[in-house]
């Protein structure tokens, strides 16, 4: 009998609580049954939730007045509208948000279930601490007092870098921004969030190719595609509502190609499905480009005008003829040719990628290769084209832009002194005071052969926090190991090396979890004491803005009051800041209402500082106006047609230049030269200098519409305005602000995304104040008035000379099934200090052929019902019911080799020895030699259900093994992204 994936075998007790049988099982049985008895005799457990529902009183009542409130779904980055019906403060109903130009009323399973968040059945209800292995209720005062005292003591003893502050991609822009600012005031760069393990390689790779590391077009714009290629993206499960736009594009005639090791639900809708070996994205992309160059399909005019160093790519691509590509990727020459021709003949075409490409130790090479492919075809800067990078969490884009990143300040300003000075001005605090908050006792190894103040060094990223605890202190480039960790809105089961994570947790002094749910973090270790749970409100209980994948900002109003004793994230940070004694400077320009910092004020502060990416025009007032009139926006162009937002792009996608009063409409499609900058047009950014080795890096004969400078030009400074005679256009007030900045500081700020070298500016003069540091916005305004982009007009670059691999090249994964290829495509040498930590490459890959013991390729991905670490969605009955078990997909041949039956318990052992006990699902969805697991499960550890370790009543309905208990070492050579989409394992019958 063929079993479908979601079948729940009859004997499964695994990970379920008070569940008798799932719906599908029930239906399956009842439809097969011949007699009445077969549908009777179900477990009494199956009715329990109905009773829980009734008791909670969340049913709508006809006699009670209903209030309609609006928010944005808190699951993925599509940004679907949520309409809530509220009766007496209780969330009683949900309606489709038909006016949302992004979702048009649609939801996936997760979005259709959000009302359940209003019940919060499995929430942490009050602050708790672990005392001798038991959870004890404590008051908020006691919790903050005890946590605060310990942290201050740790800070005193081991320095401010000994606390790891993990923020969240699920927080609003305002809270994410506050998390970054909070870490700065505490005195450390050891703060990070989910983007590190999601799209950090995208952000770094893409920004270093053409300026900004974000989705260039939008979901809606996919109506305009003539072709689309998805590489390592399963949108049908990860971004379901995006498929509305994708399939509309397909109906409009677009050809759709899906490239994945797994035949996904997205692949089921494709015109062509290509199965590749995990971790071979660069050879695949160069293999496509080989056909493009071979047949002269490249857009030579576009390349001449707007692309630098394509010839270096040609040389590398020549190394990838069809037979070599087939050997490395497993894709036949015919398939490669067909895909290349489809993309060449059907332009504009878009390239979508997700974590299949990013989560690799050469993730930055993968993302740059994708960009180069699109540049070669001239697919960037046009409707229907673009690099449509689908981000993960609902606000991972916003938290990347302005939130807690260990390598930048808000707005990608980097960590140089001038960047700190810029933000000190915005925050209105003294730079020297800020500096004194950091460990200034000595300088540390930057990893680039230099010593520097720790304030200017990247912090330890979230992918490596366990090494911040476990690594020998002498090997870490900071004063001491981590002694406390604070996680606000983050699921640790999404990070690799679970076995070592448990060890790290048992070693660290203090653990604080600020979350609506206990999370896997609270239960996975055998800690007995000094662990705190702080009940934190969900985003449905808070106001704030959220940035969708397409860079549009949407405003959320709170739907209900925080449940139980929960507090909003910002209030918790406020309480801690007060305890630490820096609440006053931290909230200097922020109104605090009854302990809750006001979101609108936080957004206005972001508006005043984030000039580099145009987060300046999106005032709370404009965002609220867009929310109110969202029905006036065109669903393809995202432009308002009439009404009070006429001409604006929905959600003012960044860059939205200048102050809000300038009324910039936002930028729907990045690098579109057919529009004036004032109307959302842009060239590629001049970010990498003006010349290199005698070659011009600025654009040649290409400029945005109505530009007064009809050629390439560098980024705008005050001096450039003077040279052009445009400084006369500045208002007196603007000039005064610019003069004040020049006087007060040494001038410029160098923005850097990730690791590309900061631009060096001469400092200390008026003329060097630039478009990023001018707090008046005058330089931006005048440049745009003359039709110019504040950031200059340059070429996109195909090589990043600061990176370990200037030209993106292939390197075999650390744990490769093709050890024979390691000599030809080896990884990097080990590094002594990289993001403060020793980082291993060759010593793992070349230690021997790991595939002898662990022959199966191990990859992971998403299920539509759950999101991220899954703690929240597995705690929602409506969703939990549909996915009750952790499982592994295995090809029939691999199952037969191991005498494994469908539905059988198996042990999956990762190449570093982590073992998980899960159910086998035998399916041809995966290819031979490849296995796949979902990554949303938690609450089990190496065969043991951790139910007893949860606070009473707070365990999710569904628990299961976290796949990352069995994943392995491996980190991107630029961003420290984990290599979780190409590792090895073995499976045996349990």
């Amino acid at each position, binding site marked *: 009998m*063929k079993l*479908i994936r979601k079948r729940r075998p009859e004997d499964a007790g695994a990970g379920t609580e008070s569940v008798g*049988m*799932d*719906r*599908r099982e*029930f*239906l399956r049985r*009842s439809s097969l049954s011949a007699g*009445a*008895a077969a*549908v*009777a*005799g179900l477990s009494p457990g*199956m*009715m*329990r*939730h*109905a009773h829980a*529902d009734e008791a909670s009183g969340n*049913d709508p009542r*006809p006699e009670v007045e209903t209030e309609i409130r609006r928010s944005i779904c808190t699951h993925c980055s599509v940004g679907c509208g949520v309409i809530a019906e509220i009766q007496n403060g209780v969330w009683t109903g*949900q*309606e*489709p948000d*038909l006016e949302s130009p992004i979702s048009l*009323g*649609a*939801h*996936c*399973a*997760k*979005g*259709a*279930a959000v009302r359940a968040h209003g019940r919060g059945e499995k929430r942490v209800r009050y602050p708790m601490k672990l005392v001798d292995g038991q959870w004890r209720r404590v008051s908020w005062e006691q919790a903050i007092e005890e946590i605060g005292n310990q942290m201050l003591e740790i800070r005193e003893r081991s320095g401010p870098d000994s606390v790891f502050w993990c923020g969240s991609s699920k927080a609003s822009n305002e809270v994410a921004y506050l998390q970054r600012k909070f870490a700065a005031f505490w005195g450390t760069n050891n703060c990070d969030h989910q983007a590190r393990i999601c799209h950090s390689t995208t952000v770094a790779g893409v920004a270093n190719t053409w300026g900004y590391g974000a989705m260039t077009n939008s979901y809606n714009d996919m109506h305009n595609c003539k072709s689309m290629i998805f590489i390592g993206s399963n949108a*049908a*499960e990860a971004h*379901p*509502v995006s*498929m*509305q736009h994708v*399939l509309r594009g*397909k*109906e*409009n005639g677009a050809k759709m190609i899906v490239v994945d090791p797994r*035949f996904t*639900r*997205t692949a*089921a*809708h494709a015109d062509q499905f290509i199965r590749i070996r995990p971790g071979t994205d660069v050879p695949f992309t160069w293999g496509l480009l080989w056909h493009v160059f071979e047949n002269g399909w490249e857009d030579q005019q576009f390349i001449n005008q707007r692309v630098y160093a394509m010839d270096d790519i040609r040389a590398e691509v020549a190394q990838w003829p069809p037979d070599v590509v087939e050997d490395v990727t497993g894709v036949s020459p015919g398939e490669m040719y067909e895909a290349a021709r489809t993309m060449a003949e059907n332009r504009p075409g878009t390239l979508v990628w997700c974590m299949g490409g990013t989560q690799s130790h050469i993730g930055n090479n993968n993302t740059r290769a994708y960009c180069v492919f699109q540049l070669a075809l001239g697919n960037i800067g046009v409707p229907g084209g673009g690099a449509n990078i689908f981000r993960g969490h609902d606000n991972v884009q916003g938290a990347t832009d302005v939130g807690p990143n260990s390598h930048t300040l808000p707005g990608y300003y980097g960590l140089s002194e001038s960047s700190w000075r810029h933000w000190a001005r915005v925050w209105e605090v003294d730079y020297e005071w800020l500096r004194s908050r950091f460990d200034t006792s000595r300088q540390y190894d930057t990893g680039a052969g230099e010593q520097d103040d720790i304030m200017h060094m990247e912090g330890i990223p979230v992918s490596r926090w366990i090494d911040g605890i476990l690594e020998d202190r002498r090997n870490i480039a900071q004063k001491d190991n981590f002694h406390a960790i604070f996680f606000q809105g983050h699921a640790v089961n999404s990070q690799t090396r679970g076995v070592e994570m448990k060890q790290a947790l048992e070693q660290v002094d203090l653990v604080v979890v600020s979350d609506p749910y206990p999370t896997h973090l609270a239960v996975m270790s055998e800690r007995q004491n000094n662990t705190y749970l702080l009940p934190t409100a969900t985003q449905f209980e808070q106001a704030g803005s959220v940035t969708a994948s397409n860079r549009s900002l949407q405003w959320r109003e709170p739907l209900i009051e925080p449940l139980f004793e929960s507090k909003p994230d910002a209030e918790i940070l406020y309480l801690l800041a007060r305890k630490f004694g820096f609440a006053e400077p931290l909230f200097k320009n922020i109104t605090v209402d009854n302990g809750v910092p006001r979101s609108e004020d936080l957004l206005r502060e972001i508006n005043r500082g984030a000039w580099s990416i145009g987060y300046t025009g999106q005032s709370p007032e404009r965002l609220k106006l867009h929310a109110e009139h969202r029905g006036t926006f065109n669903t393809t162009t995202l432009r308002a047609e009439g009404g009070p937002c006429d001409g604006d792009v929905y959600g003012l996608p960044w860059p939205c230049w200048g102050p809000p009063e300038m009324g910039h409409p936002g930028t729907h499609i990045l690098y579109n030269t057919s529009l004036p900058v004032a109307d959302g047009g842009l060239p590629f950014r001049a970010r990498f200098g003006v010349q290199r080795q005698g070659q011009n890096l600025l654009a040649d004969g290409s400029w945005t519409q109505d530009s007064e400078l009809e050629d390439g030009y560098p980024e705008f400074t005050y001096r450039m305005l003077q040279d052009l005679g445009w400084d006369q256009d500045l208002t007196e007030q603007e000039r005064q602000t610019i003069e004040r900045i020049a006087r007060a500081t040494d001038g410029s700020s160098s923005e850097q995304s990730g690791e590309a070298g900061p631009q060096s500016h001469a400092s200390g003069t008026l003329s060097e104040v630039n478009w990023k540091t001018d707090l008046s916005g005058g330089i931006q305004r005048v440049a745009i008035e003359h039709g110019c982009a504040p950031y200059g007009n340059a070429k996109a670059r195909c090589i990043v000379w600061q990176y370990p691999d200037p030209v993106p090249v292939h390197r075999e994964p650390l744990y490769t099934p093709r050890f024979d290829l390691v000599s030809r495509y080896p990884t990097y040498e080990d590094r002594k200090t990289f993001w403060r930590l020793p980082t291993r490459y060759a010593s793992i890959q070349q230690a021997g052929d790991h595939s002898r013991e662990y022959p199966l390729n191990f990859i992971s991905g998403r299920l*539509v019902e759950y999101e991220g670490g899954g703690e929240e969605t597995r705690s929602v*009955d*409506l*969703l939990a*019911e*549909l996915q009750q078990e952790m499982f592994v*997909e295995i090809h029939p041949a691999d199952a037969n080799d191991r005498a494994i039956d469908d539905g059988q318990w198996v042990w999956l052992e990762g190449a570093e020895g982590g073992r998980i006990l899960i159910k086998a699902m035998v*399916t*041809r*969805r995966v290819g031979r030699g490849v296995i796949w697991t979902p990554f949303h499960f938690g609450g089990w550890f190496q065969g043991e259900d951790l139910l007893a370790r949860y606070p009473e009543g707070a365990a999710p309905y569904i628990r299961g093994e976290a796949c990352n208990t069995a994943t392995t070492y491996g980190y991107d050579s630029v961003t420290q992204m984990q290599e979780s989409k190409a590792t090895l394992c073995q499976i045996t019958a349990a």
Partner: protein
Amino acid sequence: MARMKFLCDAERCIECNACVVACNNENDVPWGINRRRVLTLNDGEPGEKSISVACMHCTDAPCAAVCPVDCFYTTTDGIVLHDKDICIGCGYCFYACPFGAPQFPEQEAFGVRGKMDKCTFCAGGPPEDNSVEEYERYGANRIAEGKLPACAEMCSTKALLAGDGELVADIYLTRVLKRSGRPDTWGWQKAYGAGLTVSGEAS
């Protein structure tokens, strides 16, 4: 007069289960019972297709034809509903239904079925519209509020269409035309006795 119908466009259905959850959420259906479900054919292999299925509100509904106590009634626009006061839980409708729609949520020991429960096209049942009694026994009555079934209204890709058959056919055929393919109208002929291309079909 409108004739309400469901159609699931298999080319657009991505098996995201939004319809299932929207239904359970809107109608507060207990854990373990499904008025709607998504079925996948050729799961994990080329040719994989998903469709969302619930009561199709058939013309000449077989459930009504076999019901020994005649608890079924049909609204003027073709929505098939039933009265749980009369239903004896015999299960004949379950065997007659080509779509497996009838469910029996009130299970007891020794094989006694409770009242039948099924998709109401979000039109509730005989009690007063949008009363507590109607909600608790039959679920939401969106039709009385001028709205359409929650499953279709929230469908992630607008694969599931619910509304007047002619309007549904109009949208669907436009899509088919755009795709230049053949219509793949799963269940339509079975439920409504006529193909989609016949215009102005009788209800």
